């Protein structure tokens, strides 16, 4: 039994079907990547799983418990934690206070971090502890977003485009941090558009298109799948065989 089991998950915004019966199993000992074109329902999947939006149908099971529509804060307390595409922080507070807030929430029932400082060390923000979060450059803000999510002591971390807006070297450094998580017992499920990074980082890829899962498997296999190539490159117009 996987830690996170998504069964027939549906989400409709009015007449728009954003998720059309998604089935997904995610374990906490590996990195799972979710890819798909814009509007394919990746972020909506995260939003519905973590309770930001209510599901229209289907169920989400976390460690065997039904967590469908129980509210975002309750899901976070069960150590299923997500980050946001827009690199969110508590902008008016210091970096240290940002992490401390999450750490204090995660400490209920025993967290994995001895102090907020250990989290700052882990993501490489220790020198900026007294800086105001809103004044951080974008790369540091991304790290802070990760630090805040880690502060809750997650068992599974859902990262929504953690590399968006980063330059190559920053994205690589970030990927290195992410790769350290599964060995520590923090499962990672991430959305990103950088296919090279995803192929490197992920043990398994899931491809969404128009709210349905069209492929799933090891990255090399999935990226070679003709259906996936069609979604990303458009209908095959008899591309030159070279």
């Amino acid at each position, binding site marked *: 039994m996987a830690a996170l089991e998504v069964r027939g998950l549906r989400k409709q915004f009015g007449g728009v079907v954003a998720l059309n019966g998604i089935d997904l199993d995610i374990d906490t000992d590996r990195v799972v990547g979710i890819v798909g074109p814009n509007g394919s329902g990746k972020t909506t999947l995260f939003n519905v799983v973590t309770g930001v939006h209510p599901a229209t149908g289907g169920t989400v099971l976390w460690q065997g418990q039904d967590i469908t529509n129980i509210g975002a804060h309750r899901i976070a307390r069960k150590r299923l934690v997500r980050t946001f595409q827009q690199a969110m922080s508590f902008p008016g507070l210091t970096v240290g206070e940002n992490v401390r807030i999450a750490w204090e929430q995660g400490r209920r029932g025993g967290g994995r971090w001895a102090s907020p400082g250990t989290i700052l060390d882990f993501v490489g923000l220790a020198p900026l502890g007294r*800086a105001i979060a809103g004044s951080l450059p974008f790369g540091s803000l991304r790290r802070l977003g990760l630090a805040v999510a880690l502060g809750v002591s997650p068992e599974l971390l859902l990262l929504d485009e953690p590399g968006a807006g980063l330059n190559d070297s920053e994205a690589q450094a970030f990927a290195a941090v992410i790769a350290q998580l599964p060995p520590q017992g923090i499962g990672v499920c991430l959305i990103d558009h950088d296919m090279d990074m995803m192929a490197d980082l992920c043990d398994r890829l899931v491809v969404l298109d128009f709210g349905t899962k069209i492929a799933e498997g090891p990255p090399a296999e999935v990226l070679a799948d003709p259906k996936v190539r069609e979604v990303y490159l458009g209908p095959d117009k008899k591309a030159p065989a070279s």
Partner: protein
Amino acid sequence: MPVTDNSAGKTGAATGRTRASHRLALLTADNASVPLPASVQAITAILLAVLLIALPWLGLGYRFLSIAITTLYTAIGLYGLGLQFGQAGIMSVGHAALMGVGAYASAILSVQLGLGFWTSLPFAMALSAIVGGVIGLPTLRVGGQHYIIITFCFCALFVIVLTNGGTFTGSATGLDVGSVTPLPGINFDKLSNNYYLVLAALFLALAATYLIGISRYGRTLRAIRENEQLARSVGINVDLHKLGVLMVSGLFAGLAGVLQLYYLRHISPTLFGAFPSLYLALMVMLGGARYLYGPLIGAVIVNFLPEVLNLDPVDSRIAYGICLLLVILLLPGGVGAGIKNVYCALTGGSGTQTQGGGSNGRA
């Protein structure tokens, strides 16, 4: 736009600024989340306590002491407003009505059941807290200016109910109470003793505000103020805490209301209507809701300004309006922020720490 993790560009921009605008930025920056050294905090607290305790012995006269009492009980109510607005980010322009709930509850208990100051106080505070929570229910669906309008409506409604409450609320004339039940050896009919009673309550309010500010609870409230969605995603029960802080704010308001009632010995609906409510909002913004002494500073300015400048009520309203404009334009963090920034500038430390720590502010 992607920005590289490199502060060189920022430093260049900072030196490009003129010295004057840099000074202005230092003065106006909001630095509430940067703590002052513990020694400075302790000295400020002791000096303030000594000044407030010595006030009745300075021979400043009956009128001065009366205004001081008004200032202090107003400040107690403001500490509740400061908590909900400064920490949790929920503004209210109907706060005088919440003080009115406490005052009227105590007055009605006195008139109907003969309960005195000490016995009615807990009931009045509890009722204010409950009403605060009930008015807070809409915050679960609306925020910001929408909620402000709801608080204003509550305030108007409260006055209408009081004016039409017959003998139960005393209608437009209001209700009278006796004096505070004396404690052994302390008779509160004496003005200076009444002052000390209100001062003791203010110290309690200050201590509670300070402790909340440095506690996990305070950080939780600030998280909600700064980013509700992120607060939820780290496991904070945002809805519960919003109602909770409005109830705590109600406790402060109830205490202030009862103190007001037993100082004036007579209350009427106009004391808790739209104008007093707007004054409370003005005071908390003037003083700086996020600063420990901000609400007190705001109360002192608004209560003593007409006295110092010898203004009549109409002129003082104009003066308040000008003060509010000046604060919004020049000191968005309130006078409290200005004082802290001036102190930080004088001592050479940087009030606002931007990236790279303290060295940036000294340039």
